């Protein structure tokens, strides 16, 4: 039996999982339209590779990964691209973002899929590209592109692979039901990941002990695979990546670092399933398991939904009663965010749609004063002092907030959950984090601007001194001239000859010293030579694949450049002698 480490803090909210587990994974009828945001993951938005009006097949790539941390997006069903534009997406702010809209043709016809059932023959790079191409991103809720997580290039070798099947959020049962019904495929996925990572020494599946059926299913499938199923007491938030790593290994991920720095990789069980699909069946990530629950819906169960299905479609199919609903939550009751509209699509990270009744999740009472009772500190899984963070957040004391490790807050909400004064603590922390990040950016920008300003000042001063010396030299020269030719001064500029003489004098004083002239000519020569070289290159191109016209043109410019070089060289020799 593996040792389990107990995390500090944590809370035990009622788990409310039974209601959505009365039936297995269901399928929804095809929605009329699917809306696919280009950003459904952490990292850069995907780059669209289709155009409006195009006919696409199920599984066809619509947008490709744009950076090393990004994920491709595929058509969840066949149909036509009817729009590529800004649409409201599922986001706490209710914002809009670029989306691809598919109007389904109802045929649901697959593109040809190329699986790789013999994955053991593939190199890690091939497998990773396969996973990247399938657009797999963390399905536990964070949406980190899996291929990037499985990149071993920059980190130490992975000796521990942790599969997160904790699902500690109340209400959500997506992982639970997926394990119950498809544990074999999850294990296949884990074996692929293990192969890709060079068979880590330890492979653990972490799961809370409130899912006995899922644990039994996993145990059955894991026999003889070397994969260890570790169940531990239910406590929120055990499913946080950092918390789970501590529970299973007793190691802490150092602040500001990644599990990979400890030689660990942690993936959600649903992601393992998606990886199996991507590699063995060649199917990209176009669907996921989402829990629909809450008393405002008559039917509570899990669905295998197509990515891009509008939330409203899901609700309509399940006898949703808007009058009963106190709020609409994407995710769980602890970390989920409220949706302002049900017209947004479900995405890769949508673990759950929770439509609670007013009795289930009533509107909160107004916040009372903080009495520093410390219940929040008792509940904090990161051993922070939420009550102190709250006071400093209210005072905008960024220094103290950082000294109290605000950025180690995982926003699990345990502190707000227990707060007897009903203070929205997490909201304060989010806001303060944003403020601090903005202040840092502003500071960095200001520093750059200051540097540039100071540099400019120095440059201007230099130019001033140079001008001043020149002016002084000119003045001296004029005085000298006055002394040497007193006659000119007498008839002060009355005759044309005098004026010419004065002008010549000015010209001679203005004329730079021979060194300066030489330097200038050298620069000109260099530039001319460069231009000549470029012109010759262009000429070469033109002769190989250009028209006759272009050739003549380029020839002329080469000649001109040659002439310029010759002239400059000649003048340079004159000056140097």
């Amino acid at each position, binding site marked *: 039996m593996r040792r389990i480490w107990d995390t*500090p803090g944590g809370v035990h*909210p*009622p788990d409310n999982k039974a209601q959505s587990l009365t039936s297995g994974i269901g399928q929804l009828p095809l929605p009329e339209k699917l809306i696919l945001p280009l950003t459904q993951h952490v990292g850069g938005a995907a780059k669209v590779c289709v155009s409006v009006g195009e006919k696409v097949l199920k599984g066809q790539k619509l947008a490709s990964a744009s950076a090393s941390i990004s994920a491709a997006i595929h058509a969840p069903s066949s149909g036509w691209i009817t729009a590529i534009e800004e649409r409201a997406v599922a986001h*706490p702010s*209710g914002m809009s973002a670029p989306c691809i809209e598919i109007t389904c043709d109802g045929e649901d016809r697959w593109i040809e899929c190329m699986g790789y059932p013999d994955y053991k023959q593939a190199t890690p790079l091939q497998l990773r590209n396969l996973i990247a191409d399938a657009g797999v991103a963390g399905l536990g809720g964070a949406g980190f592109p899996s291929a990037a997580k499985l990149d071993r290039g920059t980190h130490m070798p992975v000796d521990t692979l942790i599969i997160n099947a904790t699902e500690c959020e109340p209400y959500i049962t997506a992982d639970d039901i997926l394990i119950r019904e498809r544990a074999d495929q999850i294990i296949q996925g884990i074996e692929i990941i293990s192969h890709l990572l060079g068979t880590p020494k330890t492979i653990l599946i972490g799961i809370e002990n409130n899912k006995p059926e899922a644990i039994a299913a996993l145990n059955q499938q894991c026999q003889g695979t070397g994969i260890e199923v570790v169940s531990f007491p239910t406590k929120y938030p055990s499913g946080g990546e*950092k918390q789970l790593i*501590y529970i299973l290994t007793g190691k*802490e991920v*150092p*602040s*500001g*670092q990644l599990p990979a720095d400890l030689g660990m990789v942690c993936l959600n069980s649903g992601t393992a399933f998606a990886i199996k699909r991507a590699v063995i069946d060649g199917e990209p990530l176009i669907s996921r398991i989402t829990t629909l629950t809450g008393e405002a819906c008559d039917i509570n169960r899990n669905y295998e939904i197509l990515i891009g299905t509008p939330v409203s479609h899901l609700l309509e199919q399940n006898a949703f009663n*808007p009058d009963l*609903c106190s*709020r609409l939550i994407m*995710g769980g*009751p*602890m*970390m989920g*965010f*409220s949706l*302002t*509209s*049900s*017209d947004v699509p479900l995405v890769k990270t949508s673990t759950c749609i929770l439509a609670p009744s007013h009795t289930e*999740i009533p*509107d*909160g009472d107004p916040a*009372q*004063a*903080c*009495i*520093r*009772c*410390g*219940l929040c*500190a008792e509940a904090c899984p*990161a051993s*922070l*002092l939420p*009550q*102190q963070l709250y006071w400093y957040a209210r005072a905008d004391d960024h*220094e103290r907030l*950082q*000294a*109290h*490790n605000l*950025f*180690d807050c995982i*926003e699990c909400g*345990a502190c*707000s*959950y*227990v707060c*007897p*004064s*009903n203070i*929205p603590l*997490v909201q304060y922390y*989010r806001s303060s984090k944003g403020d601090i990040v903005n202040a840092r950016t502003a500071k960095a920008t200001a520093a750059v601007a200051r540097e540039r300003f100071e540099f400019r000042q120095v440059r201007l001063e230099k130019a001033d001194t140079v001008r001043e010396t020149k002016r002084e030299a000119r003045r001296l020269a004029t005085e000298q001239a006055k002394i040497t030719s007193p006659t000119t001064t007498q008839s002060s500029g009355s005759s044309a000859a005098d004026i010419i003489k004065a002008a010549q004098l000015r010209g001679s004083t203005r004329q730079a010293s021979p060194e300066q002239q030489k330097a200038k000519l050298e620069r000109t020569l260099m530039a001319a030579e460069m231009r000549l070289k470029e012109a010759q290159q262009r000429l070469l191109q033109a002769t190989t694949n250009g028209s006759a016209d272009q050739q003549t043109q380029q020839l002329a410019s080469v000649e001109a450049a040659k002439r310029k070089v010759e002239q400059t060289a000649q003048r340079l020799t004159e000056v140097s002698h």
Partner: protein
Amino acid sequence: MAFKQVSSPHSHARQSTGQIMQLVLLATLPGLLVLSYQFGWGLLINILIATISAISAEALILKLRNRPIEFYLRDYSAVVTAVLLGLALPPLAPWWLVVVATVFSIVIAKQLYGGLGSNPFNPAMVGYVVALISFPIEMTTWVTPVSLLAADVSHPGLLESLAIVFAGNSPVDGVTGATPLDLFKHSDGLLVEQIYQNNSLFSAASFAGVGWEWANVAFLIGGLALLKARIFTWHAPMAMLGTLALMSMLFWDGGSSNSPGSPLMHLFSGASMLGAFFIVTDPVSSAVSNRGRLIYGALIGLLVYVIRAWGSYPDAVAFAVLLGNFAAPFIDNYTVPRTYGHGQSRRATDKETSE
């Protein structure tokens, strides 16, 4: 369709600040009952006067501060302050003493700092100390425990008590007397054994001092109940009692004429248990982290003993708590807990930024 926008988390535990305060009030009941049995109606009258003054003062200031009165009164914090003060002030004290102490607690020590949660000092203890310094005679006149009353004397009845409190009538001779700590303090040059033999306050006691010992036991029971209900953690009260016990053991010296008294006497006399479980645990004015609360509690325990043994006040909980309140922010600075993923804990004033 539009839905309400609410910040996570969406679920909340069902315990409110008002409920916590009510639990604290409930937990004072055993102590209140024992004290009332031992010392008569005086304490109940104290609590009544204090509660009325506290609520009125709080409501008045809230009105002046343009705050919703009912909303803030419902947190019951004023009532808790009033009850604690009423328990600490001597029974049969004149009404104006209770009013002055309470109004000072609520208005000066609490509301002027910004109300509940913002006060650096424990309001009840501020009120108590103000009364103690301003009216030393009234504050040191205690009622004799019921079992030590002479055969023909009894505690004044309710009406009689009201007359004493409001009309200034003097209580019958023999009804008032010293407290055990007071008596012990003013028995210089006697061996502890002699003090115990000469005074029925000690000789008739089971283990500490007549009347007080059982009141302290009752407060201990109430406090343990709150501990069990997780209203506070064990750190501050246990550190305070532990340090008090340790100090009194160290300096007990077998009961010579210089001995400051036995550990049992210190733990179960005066406001030891009331202080440990109802005053030191006041979260607003104490240190915040568990480690900080250990130090904070120990400091108060130490100060209680030092003032009792070598100071000029027989009981010292109020002074010790206020001094502890002073030190709390300083303690906080050095006792920030170690955060997950950090090698060691940081100071609250750490300037280095890290992500």
